[in-house]
């Protein structure tokens, strides 16, 4: 890197290039938009977390004694809606993806910068509707909005919640559209598809899902709204309407949505594992193909959420078969991460700890997915805590850890500061311990028969519920720490060098933080991805 006479602190970058609220609210810089999204989703993470805390407090005792039954229904509904639509789905793509993809491919911005800003404003509109829903008394349909409960019987803010999610869906459609066109058309000279970082491949695969799946969610929510307001009876059983039609349309999106909630995390993990093994990622081609395979196969499995809802046995068998198939590319990725670690020069930094957590916990969550893909098992454990544990292992043990790992990994690049490594490791450990204590007992609870969405339960389930709640409080402490020390680091953290980790990738060849246009001159790429054998810098920046 060139040396500059200007002190490092004062180099012009995307953060200090322009000041003032207008320069942020009217920005078209993908990096600033990423930070706008970061504020929004962090806000919702704590709201969703707050609902979770209330749920776990209620479940400390078998009796329903903290809140009323209807209130409990609202708590788990809004916990799910907020965490899924306002945190997990946008987290890695809209924050890390927006920030990094142009830089990683050697471009100055995404293909459509104004559409990018529009997507954030749409997200804010959806957020406002969701906040209205919450403050106006909440909604209790379950995050799944099943009919005819949602269309006929509830008097809560169903339409507002449906509108909120409908609107926020367009935010992700626009993000996905932007990413797809960007990766196709804005790669720098020499940046061929086979040289792309897997993080880019992962967000590309995610974008395919955004574009093909989200519109079906939009129409299903719109039809629920039309039924409530105008009494169009599309799902009305009295007219011969089929409640399962709603479920087919809903899950056609919402199953691929869970792959939206894991693929970007897998991309993050690939970057981290390669960097902190200081080694080329094992099996690049298969890793990239596996991402695409998961995105595509993920569209063929949705009715495994409906095995006991009344679908035909023959359809159930088809969906069960495809559910097994989609596990194969996921397993390939786990094996390849492991093979990357083998004989690598391993550094146990905070991002690496999160990556390890991801690999282990995602594997457990994924394996239990295979259990429930079997019709025979699913009949017993569906709608129990087994399912809750299964998806939280993947979404929280997997994706949230990947998100935090990514935030730590790229924090020096985003903010120009180092976070405090000691605190980082402590938070990672607390999160890992807290997570397992919260959710492992839930596998057992589900297997023992405790149903989900129940506000009171049989006394024999209490011990495991108490353990779970204890774990949740540790988890909460763990999540608070990064928020505090990231904020602290923005003022007091060590100034970050351009490449503190000795990592491969175009983003590490720019300044920390980058300039507004990312590159003075578009680079010409002549090297393969993960060219760690060519990198000679010291592997790890330690405090």
């Amino acid at each position, binding site marked *: 890197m060139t040396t500059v006479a200007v002190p490092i602190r004062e180099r012009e970058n995307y953060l200090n290039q322009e000041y003032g609220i207008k320069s942020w609210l009217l920005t078209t810089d993908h990096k600033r938009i990423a930070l706008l999204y970061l504020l929004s989703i962090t806000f919702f993470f704590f709201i969703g977390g707050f609902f979770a805390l209330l749920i776990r407090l209620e479940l400390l005792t078998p009796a329903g004694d903290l809140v009323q039954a209807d209130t409990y229904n609202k708590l788990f509904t809004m916990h799910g809606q907020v965490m899924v639509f306002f945190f997990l789905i946008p987290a890695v793509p809209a924050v890390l993806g927006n920030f990094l993809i142009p830089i990683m491919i050697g471009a100055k*911005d995404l*293909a459509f910068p104004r559409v990018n800003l529009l997507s954030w404003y749409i997200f804010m509109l959806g957020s406002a509707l969701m906040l209205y829903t919450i403050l106006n008394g909440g909604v209790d349909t379950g995050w799944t909005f099943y009919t005819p409960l949602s269309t006929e019987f509830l008097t809560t803010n169903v339409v507002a919640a449906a509108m909120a999610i409908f609107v926020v869906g367009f935010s992700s459609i626009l993000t996905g*559209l932007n990413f797809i*066109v960007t990766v196709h058309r804005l790669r720098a000279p020499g940046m061929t598809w086979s040289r792309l970082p897997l993080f880019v491949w992962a967000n590309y695969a995610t974008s395919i899902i955004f*574009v093909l799946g989200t*519109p079906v969610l939009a129409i299903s929510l719109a039809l629920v709204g039309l039924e409530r307001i105008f009494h*169009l*009876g*599309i799902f009305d059983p009295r*007219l011969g309407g089929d409640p399962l039609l709603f479920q087919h349309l809903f899950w056609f999106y919402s199953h691929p949505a869970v792959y939206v909630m894991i693929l970007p995390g897998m991309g993050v993990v690939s970057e981290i594992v390669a960097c902190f093994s200081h080694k080329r990622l094992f099996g690049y081609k298969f890793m990239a193909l596996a991402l695409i395979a998961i995105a595509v196969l993920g569209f063929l499995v949705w009715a495994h959420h409906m095995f006991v809802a009344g679908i035909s046995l023959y359809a159930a068998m088809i969906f069960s078969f495809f559910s097994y198939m989609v596990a194969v590319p996921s397993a390939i990725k786990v094996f390849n991460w492991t093979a990357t670690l083998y004989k690598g020069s391993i550094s146990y930094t905070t991002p690496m700890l999160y990556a390890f957590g991801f690999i282990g916990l995602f594997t457990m969550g994924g394996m239990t997915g295979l259990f429930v893909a079997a019709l025979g098992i699913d009949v017993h454990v569906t709608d129990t805590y087994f399912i809750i544990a299964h998806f939280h292992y993947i979404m929280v043990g997997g994706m949230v850890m990947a998100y935090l790992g990514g935030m730590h990994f790229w924090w020096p690049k985003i903010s120009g500061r180092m976070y405090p490594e000691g605190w980082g490791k402590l938070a990672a450990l607390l999160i890992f311990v807290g997570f397992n204590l919260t959710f492992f007992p839930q596998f057992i609870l589900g297997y023992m028969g405790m149903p989900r969405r129940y506000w009171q339960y049989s006394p024999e389930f209490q011990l495991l519920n108490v353990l779970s709640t204890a774990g949740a409080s540790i988890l909460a402490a763990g999540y608070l720490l990064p928020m505090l020390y990231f904020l602290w680091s923005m003022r007091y953290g060590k100034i970050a060098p351009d490449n503190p980790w000795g990592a491969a990738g175009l983003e590490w060849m720019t300044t920390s933080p980058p300039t507004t246009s990312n590159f003075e001159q578009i680079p010409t790429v002549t090297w393969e991805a993960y060219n760690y054998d060519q990198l000679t810098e010291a592997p790890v920046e330690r405090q």
Partner: protein
Amino acid sequence: MSDSSPNFTAHSPGLQHHFATMEQQTDASVMGMWVFLVTEIMFFGGMFTGYMIYRYTYYGPWLEGSQHMDFWWGTINTAVLLCSSLTMALGVRASQLGQRRLVVAFLLITILFGVGFLGIKGIEYHGHWVDGQFPGAHFRFAGPNPRQVELFFSFYWAMTGFHALHVLIGIGLVAYIAYRSWKGAYGREYHNPVENVGLYWHFVDIVWIYLYPLLYLISHKHVSG
């Protein structure tokens, strides 16, 4: 910071800073428009799926409902939209040739056809409403299987309603493009927005090309029961 890299050619007005050439920008814009249209395929696709499922299960009521559609208005409306597609295509062609006045003329005629479509839809909707063919408390149907016929009408209103909304939005987009064309914003070198709005308009026409037979033409020969 000026771009001194040899990748960058002399600046076309309308070339955005993150694109190296106008061709790259246009390619990206067209691809983006098609990706958006694919999302619209899936949006309408959800309703087509429901339609197919119920048509399979309730063929009789679907037939009944279809035979209560206004065949002539529906057919005329199909022709109206096809004419609007012609004028839209001719408008895009004129913009490719830099013929500013012709562009505006064709786009305005397209808008007229679009308004005509919505007007006819309004006449049909009014007729259905007066005949008690809007689902809900006031629905009435004298023939067999009134409940499932109400289901058919739910699809009719939802599908044509969303389609009409898209026509309305399309009219707005065409009007905006016509205004910008009038102001001279486009020429032989740069007319991509006109093409993109054209793509949107034709897509909305294609949706109607399928809605028309599915809703209006199930059969005039079959008898339900």
